[in-house]
């Protein structure tokens, strides 16, 4: 369980969007590096060093593949390093390849961590806020697919056991399988969709004022952080839409001050810092008696 995941799901959604959008809109080597390191550090916190290092080794190869493949296909650039089969391998293309590989790998780590903390119940919580009916519909659908799978397996096994498929004709075999599939579909649909109807017929939930209990509350802290993130996004998107790093034919000069890197770095490392702070606090609060 991660402390960062205790934030409101909407905030988490906004946060990951801000990180990825900032990275891709700037395409700046330092910002991409910050996002990559931040993503990997948080991934380590979520999964522990042992499991995470396996993934890091794997993604290192992905990184290498992109970083090597890119400059061998793009030959634009002011400074040729050497010539490969009569095509220039340039410093600019190598740099861009590294940045591109970093951005792709960073996105992979962030989305992996994100889906780790953004669980089904959070999706439902967000949807219920939008509309209670939508929440119910989605939860029904969510229930339907795994239920159908289990039922299908059960029936397959049972029918196979009593020799349902022991026929020579393939067409007949397929027909029987289809019949079974249809039956399973009807039965599952009944379980998932008809039951609520029955409950409704009994007068369940017919009163207009239906209340719902919300586990996740959008607190003041969440609100402030969300507004901060949105402002951050608007400011930097405005900036980078004018000053996106250009790689061809020469890498464009960077006019961003050191202070901006600190702010962006803080954003990228925020989950890691928060997580570390919480674990220190947890240790501190444990009774020594």
């Amino acid at each position: 369980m991660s402390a960062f995941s205790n934030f409101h799901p909407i905030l988490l959604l906004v946060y990951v969007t801000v990180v990825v959008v900032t990275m891709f809109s700037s395409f700046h080597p330092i910002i991409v590096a910050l996002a990559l390191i931040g993503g990997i550090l948080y991934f380590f916190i979520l999964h522990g060093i042992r499991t995470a290092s396996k993934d890091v080794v794997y993604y290192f190869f992905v990184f290498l593949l992109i970083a090597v493949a890119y400059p061998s296909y793009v030959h634009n650039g002011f400074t040729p390093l050497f010539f490969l089969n009569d095509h220039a391998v340039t410093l600019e293309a190598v740099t861009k390849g590294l940045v591109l590989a970093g951005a792709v790998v960073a996105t992979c780590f962030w989305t992996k961590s994100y889906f780790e903390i953004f669980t089904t119940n959070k999706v439902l919580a967000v949807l219920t806020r939008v509309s209670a009916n939508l929440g119910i519909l989605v939860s029904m659908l969510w229930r339907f697919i795994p239920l159908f799978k289990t039922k299908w397996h059960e029936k397959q096994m049972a029918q196979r056991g009593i020799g349902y498929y022991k026929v020579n004709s393939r067409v007949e075999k397929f027909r029987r399988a289809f019949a079974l599939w249809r039956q399973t579909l009807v039965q599952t649909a009944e379980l998932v969709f008809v039951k609520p109807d029955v409950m409704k017929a009994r007068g369940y939930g017919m009163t207009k004022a239906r209340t719902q209990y919300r586990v996740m509350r959008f607190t003041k802290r969440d609100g402030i952080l969300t507004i901060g993130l949105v402002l951050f996004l608007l400011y930097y998107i405005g900036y980078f839409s004018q000053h996106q790093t250009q790689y061809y034919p020469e890498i464009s000069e960077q006019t961003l001050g050191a202070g901006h890197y600190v702010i962006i770095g803080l954003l990228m490392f925020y989950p890691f810092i928060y997580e570390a702070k919480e674990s220190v606090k947890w240790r501190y609060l444990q009774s020594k008696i």
Partner: protein
Amino acid sequence: MKKDLLVVAFILFIVGWLVTGTKIQSVEEYYLTHIDEITEDSETVTLEIRSDTVLDAMDKLKPGLEKYVEPDGEILKKTEYVLRSGDTAFDLLDRATRHHRIPVEYQGADYNIYNSIYVQGINYLYEFNCGPLSGWMYKVNGEFPSRGVSQYELQDGDEVEFHYTCDVGRDLVGYIRQSKKVGN
């Protein structure tokens, strides 16, 4: 499983890349080209590379490239070169640009359906850099051949010109509107 497959794909890529004949040259080695001396009885052709059209369409040019556009539109002034037997227009371009250290990027003949080399960029000016209809075209003796640049065999006295266009050739002198094919 998915990860194993990717690792295998990676190794295959590297091995395939090394096996299919990689030639690594240093910058000096690459630009070291031999240009034949012009003698009285040698067959010659001329080559010219121009990008005038960009100057009229600076608003369409990709931002950041303004510095690299030649102010007079002349990348290579009309120069005479010795014609070696079997030379195509591309061979001439390759030899001359190497000699003058003008960077050229092209797509090899195996990589497109026309079985011809396709010139993507000369002197940091690439296709699509000046609007979606821009690119490099070539002209021999004032006409735009409807053949690929590495399929056009040159004759003695041919005048080859490479032009950058911002409008599939309609902004160039001598472009025939009827022929749909864009040269090079």
